[in-house]
């Protein structure tokens, strides 16, 4: 049984970056792709890079507050990104944009087969409407779980809620979407 050399954890790097800020560049290298995905799915590609840049700058400035008991800082970065998104939407008054980005991506993603694309577009539009009707908390929980692949405890960290609350929010969100699109499974089969 072979053990790989131990890479410094995010917590190690962030801790060392307090003295040597340039080390924070390694956090960017590790997590830019995931954070870009996170941002692009929520506010669209046009502003994703700018939002990610602001997120990393804000994270750099607040790195002293990072809890080193979490080896991966991705949930922490997602939490900061959520705040950056919130601030931006508040500033420009575009509260609806957060879920409009979803079906817009869908029409591009579903390849060459016309039938698939039609189905996808139609389902995507219904899904977007259903997502819009969810409470903001339930929607964030669902997106963090389904799209960003976070665990319950990581979602709890991002949203600053007890881990036990994540499961109930997730179930409620899924249930409401199934109620809004009762034939979801048939339409996507």
């Amino acid at each position, binding site marked *: 049984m072979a053990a790989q050399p131990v890479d410094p954890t995010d917590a190690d790097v962030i801790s060392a970056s307090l003295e040597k800020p340039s080390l924070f560049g390694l956090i960017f290298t590790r997590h830019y792709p995931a954070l*870009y995905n996170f941002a692009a799915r929520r506010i669209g590609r046009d502003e994703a890079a700018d939002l990610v840049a*602001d997120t990393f700058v804000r994270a*750099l400035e607040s790195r002293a507050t990072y809890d080193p008991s979490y080896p991966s800082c991705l949930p922490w970065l997602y939490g900061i990104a959520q705040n950056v998104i919130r601030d931006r939407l508040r500033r420009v008054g575009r509260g609806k944009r957060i879920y409009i980005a979803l079906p817009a991506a869908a029409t591009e993603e579903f390849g060459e087969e016309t039938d698939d694309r039609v189905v996808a577009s139609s*389902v995507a539009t219904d*899904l977007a409407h259903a997502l819009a009707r969810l409470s903001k908390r339930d929607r964030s929980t*669902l997106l963090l779980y389904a799209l960003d692949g976070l665990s319950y405890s990581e979602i709890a960290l991002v949203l600053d809620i007890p881990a036990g609350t994540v499961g109930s929010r997730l179930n409620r969100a899924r249930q409401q*979407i199934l109620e809004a699109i009762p034939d979801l499974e048939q339409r996507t089969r």
Partner: protein
Amino acid sequence: MAEQERHPVDDLLRAIAGNVESSAAEREYARQKLDRAIAELGRRQTRRRQRVLVWGMVFAAVFAGVAFVLLAAQPSQARAAIEEIADLVEVIDPLAATDTTFIYTRSSSSALAEVPGVALGGITIEGDSLLYLLNSRRETWYGSEGTVQMRTTYLQPTFFSDADRDAYFAAGLDRQDEIGQTRTVTVHLPIEEWPHDSVALDRAIRDRMVTDRGLPETIEYLDVALGIVGESFATPQVRASTLRLIARLEGIQLLGPPSETLTFAVDYVDKGVETRFTITLDRNGYLRHQRVFNVTADDHLGLPPATAIYEAEFAAPIVTGSLD
């Protein structure tokens, strides 16, 4: 990432949202914005330190009656990049062997060999010497008490011409070089205690340097220092201190932008031939690649420009319970 339970709503969301890839330009834009923020933060920290230093110096000057001039030097790119790795190395949990496990490393190398024509047993060659690259693969297992098992396999050499190849085999050098053979030896090496302190470490490296090969001091220094970096027994503090000393060497330059690995070079003249020594380190400070090549033609040996006379590639060390 934890295994997630599946749900049709989640599946649909994933299918519709897909994976959104960033363009290189977007990534570069975001990185530059962060780098500017890092630079500004660095300047603020430096100003804070300088203020503290200036006040300390003011007090010292009052007492000693001495005036100080504060000179700030801008570290080179190479220095900053190597020091960044050193800072990381210091916070990494070191690999450690136990009674039942070993630190295992693997490398392959290619080194120029020169056999004088007179030593070829009557085989005639074009020049004064037969030149070839001797290739080998080595695996090393470091035990906890200084026990080292080395397994070396000698591979087919690389020749500069067909005539050289014929002369090599006709002279029976393949048997002498044990081509195709694998040798395993176990030795007990005393675990060297290198000092952590940079001044003492610098002195220890200089004490160990070879001085009669006609090579520049920087190269001889690097030779010893890279041995420490590559030595699996060295503590993270020693490896970090060694990297910081390497960072301060005269003439060290960074090749390409820093990424997951960092390659730097030292140019020097060896017996009239312009030569370049390149070294690649990974983010954990492990030596991953070394190369020495002549930039200009070596008329003495008859080698064209850009001939690698030594090249070695190293895998990152791992801990293993097996000696096979």
